[in-house]
């Protein structure tokens, strides 16, 4: 079988040097992404989603050290495919060959991710002028085309606008246009709608889906909101304390979740189909990543934790060919514990609603 991967992250570990000590932000992450797929990474704040994305883009801050791992990227040059390890490339190499051209990124806050001193037009044109020998005119036309693609009307006039003259939703469209400028094969969206209000969120989500369908681009979609995941993703990686704890197809994660952390996330998801439920809130806080974690990182907050969770970190157990979860509950000798009943009912309602 010809493999169709575009990105394979294996055993990625990243530390940060801080004045308080070493933060073990990423602790052995494995992620596989196939061409044309939309994959979500979900997790609470601080779980390491952005750090993972930055590692792929080669834009980690200076105090970061990659302790282990490879980030294999399958470069597609029309005739042949070469596999490179992004972690082995130096900054200049990655800027010249990868950033913008192969992988592009959309950031969380459109209010701060555009240069306030440059016109929208210049910022969109910058990429193609930098990477390719486009004439000014060709770059201008490309930028107009992109603005139309991301649904900005009045594109000619907008080219001359500065970021402060645009609304948040418009700015995020511009950021998406910038990301798409050089026809990348992979688009990383790091919480692209978190800073926007709900109606605009839906529109931006639709736009990303639309672009994905039109261009066949692969997308990594980072969010802490499972509701958003349901709308965009084919596959889901659930991240907790610098590790992927469960991964699977969207149906597997939503309808047959195995990890108690995924249960908790699903339970905490607002449910529009019912009004008799109070919103579940996940107790406790994520572990302190300054300390070495013993056993399962989620154990202290997990009401279903087993004794072994305190001692030994669970490996990934296979549920199906596409579905994996790192919890001792899946061990053949583990007691049979089912997900909470309220969640079962919720899933039942979701299935019926879908």
């Amino acid at each position, binding site marked *: 079988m010809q493999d169709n991967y575009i990105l394979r992250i294996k055993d990625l570990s990243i530390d940060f040097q801080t004045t308080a000590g070493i933060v073990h932000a990423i602790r052995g992450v494995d992620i596989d992404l196939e061409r044309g797929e939309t994959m979500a990474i979900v997790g609470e704040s601080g779980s390491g989603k952005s750090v993972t994305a930055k590692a792929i883009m080669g834009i980690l801050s200076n105090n970061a050290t990659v302790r282990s791992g490879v980030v294999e990227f399958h470069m597609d040059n029309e005739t042949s495919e070469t596999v490179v390890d992004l972690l082995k490339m130096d900054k200049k190499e990655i800027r010249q060959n990868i950033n*913008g*051209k192969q992988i*592009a990124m959309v*950031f*969380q806050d459109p209010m701060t991710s555009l240069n*306030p*001193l440059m016109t929208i037009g210049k910022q969109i044109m*910058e990429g193609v002028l930098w990477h390719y020998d486009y004439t000014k005119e060709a770059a201008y036309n490309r930028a107009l085309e992109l603005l139309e693609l991301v649904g900005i009307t009045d594109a000619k006039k907008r080219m001359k606008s500065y970021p402060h003259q645009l609304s948040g939703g418009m700015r995020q469209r511009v950021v998406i246009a910038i990301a798409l400028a050089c026809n990348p094969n992979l688009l990383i969206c790091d919480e692209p709608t978190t800073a926007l209000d709900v109606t605009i969120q839906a529109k931006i989500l639709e736009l990303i889906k639309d672009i994905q369908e039109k261009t066949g681009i692969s997308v990594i979609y980072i969010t802490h909101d499972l509701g958003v995941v349901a709308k965009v993703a084919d596959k889901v990686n659930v991240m907790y304390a610098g590790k992927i704890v469960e991964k699977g197809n969207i149906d597997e994660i939503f309808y047959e979740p195995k990890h108690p952390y995924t249960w908790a996330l699903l339970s905490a998801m607002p449910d529009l189909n019912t009004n008799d439920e109070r919103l579940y809130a996940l107790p406790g806080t994520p572990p302190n990543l300054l300390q070495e974690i013993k056993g399962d990182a989620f154990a202290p907050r997990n009401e279903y934790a087993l004794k072994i969770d305190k001692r030994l970190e669970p490996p990934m157990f296979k549920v199906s060919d596409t579905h994996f979860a790192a919890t001792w509950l899946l061990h053949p000798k583990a007691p049979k514990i089912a997900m909470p009943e309220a969640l079962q009912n919720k899933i039942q309602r979701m299935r019926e609603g879908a």
Partner: protein
Amino acid sequence: MAQYITKRVVMAIVTIFIILLMLFIMLRFMPGSPFNDEKLNDTQIEQLNEKYGLNKPIQVQFFNYVINVMKGDFGVSYSISKDSDISVMLNTRVKVSFRIGGQAVLLGAIIGLLLGIAAALNHNTFADTLCTVISVLGVSLPSYVFGLALAYFVGFKAGWLPLLYDEKQTFLSSVMPTIALCMFTVATVARFTRSEMLEVLGSEYMLLAESKGIYGPKLIYRHALRNALIPILTVLAPLVVDLMIGSLVIEKIFAIPGIGSLMVTAIQSNDYNVTIAIAFIYSAMYIFLMLIVDILYGIIDPRIRLSNKE
């Protein structure tokens, strides 16, 4: 933009008038008179007041003064160099002082910027530490310490540069005072540039620029420096004030025939007209600089340039 500039220019002119008025009033109510001389009797003083128009109502005196200043005429000196025209007295002195001051501002700003940028780009390395040390030294040591040290080691011991100001070697004579004067500017600009650059380098739009694939000098200049420059400009004008104050002493140390040393003499001898004239030149220059800074803001920052449209 035109509207923005017009507004700034009008504000600058108004400020200059207010300053002129304040200087005038302050000096009129200061104790002492240029004719505080026991050898003069009352009628003689009366005559002198008459001659210089000092017995007219105060508003008339001010009005005449403003008219004259606009003509470039600051009146005559009362006591330092009796009856000689102040504009003539100041002419060469202003050039000498402005040259040294201008050199110091330029040199200080350029070195400070480069130092600050180098420190920020090499955050937490030797270059960064060096920048911090220079900043602390430059800010905490007054400029005359540098002046005296230079005068002693470079001027006196080594004899490389003229120890005292020499009319025949104006450039060489200006080197040591310029260096002594610019240290504070270097230090302050470096410190500011460093922190502003660090902040900008950590911003999301820098990450976006990098994720487009931009790197090297273009990344630094186009995306980082221009953004960092806006707050840096803000410190430049107040720095010039420190520089002017520094020049009062530095001009004395190197015997520079500038307006700083003249100002000290004028204050000591109650020579109103000279004091007002020099204070006015200082203020006018400061206001002019603020105006330039404001206009630069407008040029760099579209948020300011476009703020009174739409």
